[in-house]
């Protein structure tokens, strides 16, 4: 056994994040760690990586007890971590990002050429090609992920912790990453993989440990289990299979015609997109990210001016109108980038919760904080947002919990039209179930929903109609009945619809 963590308990005051957790890792193994948001996965890994120290329990590396006072200690013992939020320097080159901390040097000079050569050598050996001289800020997220992994390999890591590594990657990048992990494991590296995506875990993991409320509910071999059993172990109850009732279509709520955004490139970012969403239906948009979905959403939400085309919402022309007017006309918006559009990191949970609701919550221009708090408290309860208190700053919440708060806030608008962009990005299965159920119930109450997701399964599960975007255009439209993953994938890659 390469690594053993035995009886780890971690308490913060009277909150116990890990209770008597035992976890072990073999050489060359990919061991997945799953659990809902706040189940204690991250805490456990922070302890292993020297960022926190356990209240009790023991860590053994190669049979010898160890304790790490800092990440530097952990790195020295061959433990590397790829954080969920990349720890990269965007203005530095790929090679600089990889060698930082252990730079090749001549006298006091930083030998950048040697760094680049070393990077290329490393990239070749582990089969993860990168351009050493490119600035990291200009690299795609997939390449940035690769840089993170190469960095820990350069530091000499034998055990690599990956925290939600596929959250922001495109399906192709995910495939490449999973293949790279398997190859590295074959070469003798060991992985601890934290992920919400059970499909990916079933694909690469050898063993899976499930955490619930800070305790281990079991460790199983991937070959002996399935996604359903894992979900049950994570949530602690049966997940309800959501049935979708037949759509009862109403009036057109949103009607967009010929939307075009030229941008600075030769190809338009959005090229004559027309679509409509009726009351009582969920229209899903599938596509590899970067094919115009973001621009479409921003135009519909009033964050970007279209060069051509019109948008009508609830019968009003809102083309190029202000966000306030569009929201007034009946829009709620779960934005795709929760930190950029969704929350203010500095503000607390209550303040983030009441954004967009202040009109209803104030009297003569004075905010009624008591009412605001009870409203937000109710959402926190219903959506299971794990937060210290209502006064905790948003930046201290995990991404998944923030997402739940945003979804709750936007659903509470009870607007006729809802844009749901990546509504379940980074949230656990239990919360995903709640969010999906809420979206469907909004639809059943004659709400119109435009769903954009990079998760095909999500699009397939919820949508009544599916539009596939490719290079700024609608490449095809499928009804829920005729849509299959294969057909959509083909359209996403620019192929023609068949059948």
């Amino acid at each position, binding site marked *: 056994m390469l690594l053993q963590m035995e009886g780890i308990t971690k308490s913060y005051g009277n909150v116990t994040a890990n209770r008597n957790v035992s976890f072990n890792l073999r050489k060359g193994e990919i061991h997945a760690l799953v659990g809902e948001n706040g189940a204690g996965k991250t805490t456990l890994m922070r302890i292993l990586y020297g960022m926190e120290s356990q209240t009790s329990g023991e860590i053994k590396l190669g049979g010898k007890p160890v304790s790490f006072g800092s990440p530097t200690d952990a790195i020295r013992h061959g433990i590397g971590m790829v954080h969920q939020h990349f720890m990269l320097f965007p203005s530095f080159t790929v090679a600089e990002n990889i060698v930082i901390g252990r730079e090749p040097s001549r006298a006091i000079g930083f030998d950048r050429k040697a760094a680049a050569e070393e990077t290329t050598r490393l990239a070749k050996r582990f089969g993860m090609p990168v351009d050493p001289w490119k600035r990291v*800020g200009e690299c795609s997220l997939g390449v940035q992920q690769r840089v993170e992994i190469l960095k820990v390999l350069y530091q000499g890591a034998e055990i690599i912790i990956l925290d939600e590594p596929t959250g922001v990657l495109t399906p192709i990048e995910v495939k490449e990453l999973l293949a790279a992990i398997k190859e590295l494991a074959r070469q003798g590296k060991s992985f601890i993989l934290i992920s919400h995506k059970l499909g990916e875990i079933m694909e690469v993991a050898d063993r899976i440990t499930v955490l619930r409320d800070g305790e281990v509910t079991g460790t199983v071999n991937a070959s002996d289990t399935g996604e359903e059993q894992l979900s049950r172990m994570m949530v602690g109850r049966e997940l309800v299979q959501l049935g979708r009732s037949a759509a009862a279509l109403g009036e057109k709520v949103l009607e967009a015609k010929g939307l075009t955004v030229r941008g600075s490139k030769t190809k338009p970012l959005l090229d004559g997109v027309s679509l409509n969403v009726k009351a009582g239906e969920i229209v899903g948009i599938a596509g590899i990210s970067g094919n115009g979905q973001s621009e479409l959403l921003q135009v519909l939400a009033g964050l970007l001016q279209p060069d051509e085309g019109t948008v009508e919402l609830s019968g009003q022309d809102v083309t190029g109108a202000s966000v306030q007017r569009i929201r007034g006309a009946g829009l709620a918006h779960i934005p795709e980038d929760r930190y950029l559009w969704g929350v203010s990191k500095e503000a607390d949970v209550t303040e983030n919760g009441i954004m967009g609701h202040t009109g209803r919550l104030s009297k003569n221009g004075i905010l009624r904080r008591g009412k605001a708090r009870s409203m937000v408290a109710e959402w926190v309860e219903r959506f299971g947002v794990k937060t210290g208190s209502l006064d905790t700053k948003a930046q201290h919440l995990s991404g998944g919990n923030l997402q739940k708060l945003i979804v709750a806030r936007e659903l509470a608008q009870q607007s006729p039209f809802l844009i749901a962009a990546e509504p379940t990005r980074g949230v656990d299965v239990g919360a995903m179930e709640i969010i999906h159920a809420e979206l469907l119930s909004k639809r059943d109450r004659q709400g119109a929903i435009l769903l954009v997701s990079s998760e095909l399964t999500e699009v397939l599960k919820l949508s009544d109609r599916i539009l596939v975007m490719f290079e700024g255009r609608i490449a095809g439209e499928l009804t829920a009945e005729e849509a299959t993953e294969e057909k959509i994938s083909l359209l996403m890659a620019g192929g023609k619809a068949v059948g």
Partner: protein
Amino acid sequence: MDQLFDVSLFASALRMLTPILLAALGGAICARVGLFNVGLEGLMLIGAFSAIVGNYLTGSIALSLLFAIGCTLAFSLLFAFMSIQLQANVIVVGIALNFLALGLTTFSLRAIFDVKGAYYDKNMVGLPKLNIPVIEDIPWLGGVLSGHSVLVYASILIVAALHYYLFRTVSGFRLLAAGENPTAARSLGIKVTRIQYGAVLLCGVLCGLAGAQLSLGNVTMFTEGMTAGRGFIALVATMLGQSNPLGVAGASLLFGFMESLSIRLQGFAMPTHFTLMVPYVVTILAMLFFKDKGYMQEARKSSGSSR
């Protein structure tokens, strides 16, 4: 116009450039570690005053420079302690430092020298002037480049040294890393706090030299508030030069030239109050034309939209 753009105008531009450049380099190094030092003006003023005090007490140029540096170091340490250790807002600390410096130098002027407004003593020695052997004999160029105080030449060497340090050495690389993403730098075992202290203290040294050039370079005297906004112009030069030593040098050159031009224009029957505006008007214009597309903003943007 021939009389306007003559040798002595360009020569004086070089002299005016030096204090701005030295302080702006200090500002740049602070900005690179993520601490925007608004206190340049105050540090420079302390440098100018303490250089005179050192001169008065010792009569030695080397000792008065060291004394000036020592005093600015002490106040930089205060700035560093407040903003790094106590996590106070850097802008507020910087502004406080400026007021502290103005009040303290004015008070000390009365307490030590028992004068108001300005102190001058003909026994004090100014910074030595260097005549560069070959260049001084070249007709026009010699007049512009030769015969300045040692600090004028030193400042140019410091630009080169700082550029080499930041972009060619391992230590400089880590300094840049600490400024761009302190969390990531810390996770790699880079001692961010130590680097920040080092940067602020280096800035103190540079501001001490800037002040000494001001009070001992051209004239050998101290007047109340003699920095007269040069620290703020240096701050603008820092931003305009995007905290890159060469860029900062270019921006400082522009401001130095404008300052000497404004002095020169007074000899051309222009109202003094109008000519004194010139450097500041140029500063505002410069801010309009060069938007701060700094690397720091880039970094902030990408970290803001991580997931």
